[in-house]
């Protein structure tokens, strides 16, 4: 078992497999994850002393989850002025951490010149970003993930938004942010791609929108008005 790892060091270590256990009988669920897409599958056990872990067990659990999961960790849409238009978090990040991430990453991405590649190495992760008009679409993935595919996923999302709103612009996403989220939720789930057909996504959203419309109509139907008046 190792002694307490320094916080900055952890971000640079690559694990093949991590078994997080607790010394001295502290109550915490065991977390085991084996990552086999590297050339060799070595197993490393990280023991964190109970005293350290008890200060903030959630931090370590969250941390290793983020480190070892190959997925989209979060999605961020920011304007050129750094205003947040949409955030979706698929890995565990506390509210405080989220604010910090947005500020830091926003700074890095908004400072990138126009002709550079769409990838930025950030804190051991990789962030894929693409600018569409006044908005930057950013997705944070693992170092070993396929960044070209994530570019396609971003484009997939933008095209679906475009079809839904009819030539989407930033204002659409501001005033109808909840609809943008509904669409994202049909596209990604648990940080993975859910549907490769734009037509299917559009159909699902339309069906649900129409359920809402129907409910509105029912609510304003005459029988309801009468029922209210006679209450």
């Amino acid at each position, binding site marked *: 078992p190792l002694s307490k790892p320094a916080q900055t060091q952890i971000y640079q270590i690559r694990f093949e497999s991590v078994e997080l256990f607790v010394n001295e009988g502290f109550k915490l*669920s065991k977390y*085991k*994850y*084996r*990552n*086999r*897409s590297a*050339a060799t599958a070595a197993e490393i056990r990280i023991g964190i002393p109970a005293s350290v872990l008890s200060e903030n067990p*959630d931090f370590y659990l969250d941390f290793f*989850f983020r480190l070892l*999961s*190959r997925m989209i960790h979060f999605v961020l849409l920011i304007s050129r002025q750094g205003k*947040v*238009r*949409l*955030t*979706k*978090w698929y890995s*565990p*990040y506390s*509210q405080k951490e989220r604010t910090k991430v947005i500020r830091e990453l926003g700074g890095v991405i908004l400072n990138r010149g126009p002709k*550079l*590649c*769409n*990838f930025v*190495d950030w804190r051991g992760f990789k962030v894929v970003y693409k600018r569409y008009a006044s908005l930057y679409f950013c997705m944070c993935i693992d170092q070993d993930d*396929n*960044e*070209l*595919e994530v*570019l*396609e*996923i971003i484009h*997939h999302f933008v095209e679906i938004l475009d079809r839904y709103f009819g030539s989407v612009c930033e204002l659409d996403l*501001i*005033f109808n*942010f*909840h609809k943008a*989220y*509904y669409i994202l*939720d049909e596209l990604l*789930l*648990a940080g*993975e*791609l*859910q*549907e*490769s*057909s734009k*037509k*299917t996504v559009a159909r699902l959203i339309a*069906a*649900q929108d129409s*359920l*809402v419309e129907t*409910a*509105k109509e029912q*609510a*304003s139907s005459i029988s309801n008005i009468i029922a*209210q008046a006679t209450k």
Partner: protein
Amino acid sequence: MNPFSSGTRLRDMIRAIRSCKTAAEERAVVRKECAAIRAAISENDQDYRHRNLAKLMFIHMLGYPTHFGQMECLKLIASSGFPEKRIGYLGLMLLLDERQEVLMLVTNSLKQDLNHSNQYIIGLALCALGNICSAEMARDLAPEVERLLQFRDPNIRKKAALCSIRIIKKVPDLAENFINPAASLLREKHHGVLITGVQLCTDLCKVSSEALEYFREKCTEGLVKTLKDMANSPYAPEYDIAGITDPFLHIRLLKLLRILGQGDADASDCMNDILAQVATKIESNKNAGNAILYECVGTIMSIEDNGGLRVLAINILGRFLSNRDNNIRYVALNMLMKAITVDAQAVQRHRATILECVKDSDASIRKKALDLVYLLVNESNVKPLTKELIESLEASDQEFKGVLTAKICSLVEKFSPEKIWYIDQMLKVLSEAGNFVKDEVWHALIVVISNASDLHGYSVRALYRAFQTSTEQETLVRVAVWCIGEYGDMLVNNVGMLDIEEPITVTESDAVDALEVSIKRLNSDLTTKAMALIALLKLSSRFPSCSE
């Protein structure tokens, strides 16, 4: 009375906030809205609950605290109507994170909704669970999700598949339960179900070796066939991107095949043909095609060796490396770093192009290229590589200079074949970027020089020459000053001349002047001045004529 139309509408609040000219104004508007919402909450207002939550979500995105609205999410989720549940679940995912205890209270609603007669409500529940559940919730609701993997509607099956991924990540012990249902998903035709099913199998393999063995034995052939069908598929407008049918499915299949083929000769054999087909037939003029090729190369590199395939893969990387598109070059560099463990020689052949990338205008590419070069250095190529890197040093910007200098110094120290070469390289680095050289590094240089007695004369003369031209590099000045102090007599009398050297005339007073200049120059710090003074002291005993 239409509960959706009166009061401050969401749209109006957003407009009001956007028209604020100062932060204080915005805070005032937000405070007013929050007060109204709080009042509505405490009065248990039914009518505007939906709209109020939407407003709260917007306010939350601006960065204001909205924890008082968390229970509203729960109430909306517990309502019977679809619109309420839709916004309730969205609010839950936005305003809460899994660490909040309030989340546990949703478990019961989730359980009911996972059994709802309206499939869209099942979908909402699966989505929330898959994005935000804690380990306890995952454990509680896993049986429901498992059941939904066989639901009649494919859109639910695909959501259940992804939700299962979160469950097995949170509670790896449950993985075994999902193996069989996941395998069934692989036999489906619906693309959404296939994509998510393949992804579930991939993640199962990472968490459970039992799963890996099962899929490897039972599913490899089927997956190869599915990929073949995709690759040979005629035009399908619904899934077509840049002339390829469903690149996303291609990529996910390649990822799973990679895991199944790794370390297993039979499984690797099974997939050789389709990998070759994909590697040769996919067009690489659009990003989608390149994304597939990139994944294909990754798979080829990871599975058991088939000479022909590896050559194909390295060739693709070579093409990528000379592509004008920055993204492609970045990706190539990334993949080459992994290819080194598999076929170092092949990667060495691309050294020239990689070195070009160290001078690229894109910081991301420069950094990756430098990392790659560092991995490529060995005893036989250290000299030409260092030469190239030092040339890049001259062209690079301040930010990159630091990183590049550190890497060059490290390489030179690790691999230098002769002392004289080491001294030469260090001198070049000091002249170009002395200010970025760390203390340990120039200290080490001084130690090497002092231990190489046959090179004392050479060193001091070379340093003297360098000092004439590059006085702005502090570290160079220090090393030069030290040398002149130690070996000033050799400098003046041309002692220990090597064949390669040109003669140089330095008088005693020249040497002393050099030291004086070091003391007087504007940017000399205390260390430099002190060293120069000590050097003068040493010289004063050897050059009696100049003792004034």
